């Protein structure tokens, strides 16, 4: 039982997330191409990209601090995979539920960006340094709305069910937030929180319009400018897993519903139905908050980005928090 829970299940979760992430990346590229009236690459293109990067030469620049430079991609992929184990995926309880909650997830979400910052500074290239500075600024701006969302949801849960562990993601997922509020004020507050989490998602994934740390046309790939071969492939895989992690967090907080209860089927079939429905939710969220946005928008400047997150999104999520508190008070 111990081996099943702490060895087999994490391996399945991580490999599955890498697979799903790469597939979603392929779908995203095809859809973006179709929206620009292009044909787009085959669905398997991200797999071929990774396979190709694995055989390329792994260059370590002369100016780089080699051990930090090589460690950064490994840390990035490892941390992103670890976050996955704290999240309730497709109706299953988190694998590490007893060892961490929402606060750990919010903290761990900083680390992939931090790994990129370390890699950028360690590569000793001016482009990578600029990218790393931007990554840091961005990280500080989107962490604040994210923290407010986490606090609001936990406060709401602790108010309605004082006996539960309010920060536990499993408790949040089994008691959907929409059922905890009393009136329209609370619903509006939750919608505002949802909007701000939907805006934080593309920032965490650093896609256009929030791709300032990478900015290919501006600072030639930013933090990834000096990476090639296997190291770059690890960053590529980490960004694929991130595509699963962030929507999973959003699903766990706002849409933790399953549809297997509607069908009169056995436990195994219900599990399959839940997994499929989870993937559909994942895909829909990414379609609206990533694919559509990065086709429509152009890259923001760094001050516009900080204003978006630190001013606008913080204000939106704070108003959401205040509305929820008012809703509980009256």
């Amino acid at each position: 039982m111990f081996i099943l829970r702490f060895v087999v299940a994490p391996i399945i979760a991580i490999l599955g997330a890498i697979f799903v992430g790469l597939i979603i990346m392929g779908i995203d590229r095809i859809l973006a191409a179709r929206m620009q009236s292009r044909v787009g690459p085959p669905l398997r293109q991200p797999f071929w990209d990774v396979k190709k990067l694995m055989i390329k030469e792994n260059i370590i620049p002369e100016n780089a601090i080699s051990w930090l430079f090589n460690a950064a991609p490994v840390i990035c992929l490892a941390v992103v995979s670890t976050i996955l184990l704290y999240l309730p995926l497709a109706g299953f309880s988190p694998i590490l539920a007893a060892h961490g909650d929402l606060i750990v997830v919010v903290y761990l979400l900083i680390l992939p960006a931090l790994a990129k910052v370390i890699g950028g500074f360690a590569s000793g290239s001016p482009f990578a340094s600029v990218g790393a500075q931007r990554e840091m600024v961005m990280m500080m701006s989107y962490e604040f709305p994210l923290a407010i969302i986490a606090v609001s949801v936990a406060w709401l849960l602790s108010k309605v069910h004082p006996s539960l562990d309010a920060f536990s993601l499993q408790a949040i997922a089994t008691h959907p937030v929409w059922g905890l509020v009393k009136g329209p004020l609370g619903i509006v507050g939750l919608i505002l929180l949802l909007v701000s989490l939907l805006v934080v998602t593309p920032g965490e994934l650093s896609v256009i319009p929030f791709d300032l740390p990478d900015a290919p046309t501006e600072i030639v790939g930013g933090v990834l400018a000096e990476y090639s071969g296997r190291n770059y492939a690890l960053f590529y895989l980490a960004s694929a897993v991130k595509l699963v992690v962030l929507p999973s967090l959003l699903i766990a907080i706002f849409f933790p519903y399953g549809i297997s209860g509607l069908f009169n089927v056995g436990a195994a079939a219900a599990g399959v139905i839940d997994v499929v429905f989870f993937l559909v939710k994942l895909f829909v969220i990414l379609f609206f908050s990533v694919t559509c946005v990065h086709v429509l928008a152009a890259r923001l400047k760094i001050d516009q980005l900080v204003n978006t997150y630190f001013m606008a999104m913080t204000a939106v999520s704070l108003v959401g928090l205040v509305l929820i508190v008012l809703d509980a008070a009256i």
Partner: protein
Amino acid sequence: MPSEKAIKMNRIIKAIWVFNWFNSCGFTELIPVVGSRWDMERFGMIITPTPRHADVLFIAGYQTWKSLERAKRVYEQMAEPRVVLGLGACTMSGGMYWDSYNTVKRLSDYLPVTMYIPGCPPRPEAVFEACVKIFQHVKELK
């Protein structure tokens, strides 16, 4: 049984990443390759922002002595296996600048150009054909 190198090359053919070193009209004439008419991404080809990620170096247009130095540096920054493609008549013979004192007449005297694509400038179809052929060509060479 294909050799190890052949297997590697087959992987790269599926995902060719390109870095452009364009000096002159070659660039404006090759924009359609990225756009919706010819769409290079459907063959897995994308343009990379930095030479570190690239497999193919496109060199288009005439090279002056000064730009040649930069082209060499770009080539040195690329990761193995790497190839160079010369685009257009200018890289082959100097093109319409054949009698200028400061242009490079034949690029392969200075860089290991694997294949030239003739034309002034070449059609996008020719570029695609070259990208398919180039790795086959490299496989045959070694």
